[in-house]
């Protein structure tokens, strides 16, 4: 490291490009969370349904998503599906891979959150004349979301960081992709990576902060 002299002024010239990349990163992370939450909710319902096939499908999804590397999941979304003639662009493959991972982890969050709500509440609701669906919708779900919210923001941060794996499937518009490309062109590795790390850090911090503020307003007793 002694032999490396930093040229920050050269690196900062590329800052606008890197910030554009950061926007793409944020966009993918948010989309993957929206899709992930929807799928996770479906998987949770599948598991509660008592139907063998549905709950088996949900369990299989959760098992694969949680016990294989995200890199593998994203790689499979691009090259694995590509083998069967299904061609996802790097952007879509990255989104699908992260959403798959999110759904698995969030479904497990939801399951934990459900366990925290006593069964007696559902029974109380039912005895007041609610249908099972109503009891879930009005009694269980709001509480479940409250319990699951903060763990879910962790997953959001994780999703942001996972977008950096997109470079393995040819992604060049997100923050990691832009950084890699600038690095390849100029070899100013340490400057660009340091700037990228700071940007990732700031995004992740901002997300955590916003989530806390949101939770403080939304989930007041």
């Amino acid at each position: 490291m002694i032999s490396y002299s930093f040229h920050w002024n050269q690196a900062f010239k590329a800052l606008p490009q890197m910030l554009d990349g950061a926007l793409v990163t944020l966009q993918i992370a948010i989309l993957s969370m929206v899709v992930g939450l929807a799928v996770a909710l479906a998987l949770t319902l599948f598991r509660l349904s008592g139907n063998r096939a549905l709950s088996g499908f949900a369990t299989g999804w959760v098992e694969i998503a949680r016990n294989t590397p995200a890199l593998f999941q994203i790689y499979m979304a691009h090259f694995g599906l590509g083998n069967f003639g299904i061609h996802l662009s790097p952007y879509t493959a990255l989104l699908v891979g992260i959403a798959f991972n999110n759904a698995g982890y969030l479904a497990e969050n939801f399951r934990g959150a459900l366990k925290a709500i006593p069964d007696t509440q559902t029974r109380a609701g039912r005895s007041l004349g609610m249908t099972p669906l109503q009891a879930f919708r009005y009694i269980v779900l709001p509480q479940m979301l409250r319990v699951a919210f903060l763990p879910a923001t962790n997953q959001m941060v994780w999703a942001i960081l996972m977008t950096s794996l997109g470079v393995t499937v040819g992604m060049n518009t997100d923050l990691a992709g832009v950084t890699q490309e600038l690095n390849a062109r100029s070899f100013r590795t340490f400057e660009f990576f340091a700037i990228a790390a700071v940007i990732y850090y700031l995004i992740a911090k901002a997300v955590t902060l916003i989530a806390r503020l949101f939770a403080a307003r939304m989930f007041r007793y």
Partner: protein
Amino acid sequence: MKKTSVLAFGLVAATALTSPAKADKLDDIISSGTLRCAVVLDFPPMGSRDENNNPIGFDVDYCNDLAKALGVTAEIVETPFPERIPALMSGRVDVGVASTSDTLERAKTVGMTIPYFAFQMAVTANDKSGIKSFEDMKGKTVGATAGTFEAIALEKSVKEWGAGEFRPYQTQADVFLALSQGQIDATVSTSTVAQSNVKSGKFAGISVVGMAPYDIDYVSLFTNREEYGLINYLNLFINQQVRTGRYAELYEKWVGGDLPSLSVNGVYR
């Protein structure tokens, strides 16, 4: 008294550490007895692995020759293209023998030698894409290995065409996998890599369709920018390899065909 003697000892130690008569990298390599080369082993025929997982290729042989000239043992450090500079800067390798294009932009960061090899760029296309020449690539989805000369040139072309899409993959193998799957329609790579991948039979449904009109890609050995002693030695080594016929011999062994000239007409160096 005690305090002053401690101070004096500190001063002596500090001067000893910062003394100007320090050994340079060439000395370090010779005294350590090992030459650590960054070689890309995903880039046949320059660098790859044989059935027993041993590194082989033109670059591997060049590293071995260099170590022999220095009287030390060679250590091949596998380094993917994007990691060449971090490997050098973090002191994991001494010299890059990694088919590195000698761009002026990069020479601001590392010290480049005179060219030791020269590539021509070829277009390889998926047979279903209907691409028959470089011009046909306009508007298609194309890709190349991230961080290489041809990737930078191809991305520039795609931007100039204003149509189509460019995808950089991390390894040469991923580029050809994506190409044979039809994820990308064509790629530009060095003609040596193109031929060797098409011939390998590992990737179905692709063929070399022509040359790309890019400049000849001269590649250099590289080391730390300020290591003039070592760069000087490397330049002489490259010169001697050509002079003694070793360059031609290794070219015949790994590539075959017309030997690329390493000199540029009408200018020094």
